[in-house]
């Protein structure tokens, strides 16, 4: 509303500029320039994607023989690269989902717990502040700073032995990496989840929580019956944000699963080395792979753009 009014204001002045020039084209001129700028930026953002997309459908000779942004012609068109990329990445898709989904859900839930415990309960702010500061700072810690201890830690934890029943079920013991990834991503995703939920809970009516207390509900009941049901929108934001983050992360997979030849290799890990083997750079294959790896997050993004933007902007 206020936005409309304001921009209207802006427009008006431009309109009157046009009018004082005595030409309607003046009005259009401004809008035309504006839209040219917008479209130019659109091109900037889309060209890498577009050229990647057309390239992914080209044969190797098509890749070197035609303009990178030109669509493939009859002779240079192939679905083979997608086929090959899918063959290479298919299991990675499954593996990625195996840890990305549980880690997302768990970190969102725990984040919601933590935020609720810190925000909507009554204990002294001067003790809350440092705890909160640690959560906030946790968002910004570069993973490198914890990598060596993390590998040490996971090599000391006899997690592989304790999950013996899984391997005896015929599951490849490489999948221990998936378990490690889940725990690791939960731990490092928690700070951002907590902070996102906190900003949401902070704006939740304190009077409403107090009303529930006066109505006789305990802290746990209040969470169960009031806060959790009202957290839906923020869960959407957090789940989407976390899912993209976890799905997209390479570093932890590199350290915990290590190699794309592992049975449990996540898709990003396979993609990172795809098409760069000794026989040279197969860009068409790399592009096809890139799209396959990006598909889940792109789908989420297109379906839930608003929530994504909200998560990102916080």
């Amino acid at each position: 509303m206020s936005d409309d009014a304001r921009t209207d204001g802006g427009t008006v002045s431009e309109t009157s500029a046009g009018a004082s020039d005595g030409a309607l084209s003046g009005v259009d001129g401004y809008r035309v320039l504006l839209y040219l700028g917008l479209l130019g930026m659109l091109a900037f953002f889309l060209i890498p994607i577009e050229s990647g997309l057309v390239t992914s459908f080209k044969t190797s000779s098509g890749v070197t023989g035609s303009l990178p942004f030109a669509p493939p012609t009859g002779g240079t068109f192939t679905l083979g690269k997608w086929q090959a990329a899918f063959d290479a990445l298919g299991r990675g898709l499954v593996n990625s989902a195996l840890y990305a989904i549980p880690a997302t859900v768990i970190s969102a839930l725990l984040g919601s717990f933590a935020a609720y415990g810190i925000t909507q309960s009554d204990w002294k702010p001067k003790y809350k502040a440092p705890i909160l500061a640690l959560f906030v700072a946790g968002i910004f810690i570069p993973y490198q700073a914890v990598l060596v201890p993390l590998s040490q830690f996971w090599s000391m934890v006899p997690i592989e032995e304790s999950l013996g029943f899984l391997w005896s079920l015929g599951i490849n013991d490489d999948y221990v990496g998936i378990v490690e990834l889940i725990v690791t991503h939960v731990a490092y995703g928690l700070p951002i989840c907590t902070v996102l939920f906190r900003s949401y809970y902070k704006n939740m009516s304190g009077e409403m929580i107090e009303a529930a207390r006066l109505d006789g509900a305990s802290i746990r009941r209040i969470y169960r019956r009031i806060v959790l049901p009202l957290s839906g929108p923020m869960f959407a934001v957090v789940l989407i944000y976390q899912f993209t983050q976890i799905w997209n992360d390479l570093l932890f997979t590199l350290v915990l699963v290590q190699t794309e030849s592992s049975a449990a290799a996540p898709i990003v890990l396979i993609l990172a080395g795809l098409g760069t083997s000794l026989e040279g750079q197969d860009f068409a294959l790399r592009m096809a792979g890139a799209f396959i790896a990006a598909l889940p997050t792109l789908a989420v993004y297109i379906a839930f753009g608003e929530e994504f933007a909200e998560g990102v902007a916080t």
Partner: protein
Amino acid sequence: MTRNTDTGDDSGDAVTDGGVTEDASESGFSPIAALNDRFGSDFVESSQFWLPPFLLVGLFVYGAIIWNFLISLTDFSGFGNPNYGDLDLEMYTRALAESGFVDAAVNTFILLVGFTLVTLGLGLGLAILVDRNIRFENTFRTIYLLPMSLSFVVTAQFWAWMFNFNNGVINIVISSLGLGRVDWLGNPDIVLWAVMFALMWQFAGYAMVVYLAGLRAIPSEHYEAAKVDGASTVRMYWRVIIPQLKGSTISASVVLMVFALKAFDFLYSLVGGYRPPNGADILATKMVREAYANLNWAYASAIAIALFLMTLGIVGPYLYYQYNRGNL
């Protein structure tokens, strides 16, 4: 007992704890009541919610950082286990003496500052464009933000192709303009800027979103007051609107800088290996390389601490700023 099972137990405990708490605090004679007295009336009861996550973070993030620091004081390399009996600052002096470290630190700094500035600039421009009451605003915004949803790994594939010497879009375009081809990723003097450009492509949308929120928080009266005060559109933005985006700028820069510090994923994927193109080595890549390719664990830990301190230098003041504004 291992740490992992520990955390598992903890959350279990805490839940049962909660029940106990309630009863105990009512009876009034217990350490729980004492805790509540000291920290506030719900301290113990609410701890079932925040304590397990907090311990998890404390252990994995802060515990790990401390552990990392300890390792950086040892001589740990190769196989086996660190010897914590012999601690010194050798790794740090070694780092300062190594030109590779200094180069990586300088590159990190350049990337940090350069990337942040150009991305903020572009993001602001985009935000202003999008904020001008345009049609299809959502479409534009969605597309500008789209790269942000992609993995660094994916972006690296796209830009490796964009920057390709013979067939990349960029060289095709500039050579069709009559300029010579440029070896974007091979020339050590250029590669860092090329990387910066690709990262800008990925994150400009983020800066836009932050600025857009900032712009929309400015009351329309400020635009109108400036108009009535006689300012042209450009002057209005320059003198009245942009200065008010300070908060957005600060929070966006902090996040962008942290992204830049972490650009490891991008550089790794660009070449499919631990060693980024010459001239584009940053602390993040060097640390991982030293640790996982060269097994110089202690040295890598020292680099990690340097990186951490750099982050702290950025985030610390930011936290303080947020704290002062009552956001903590």
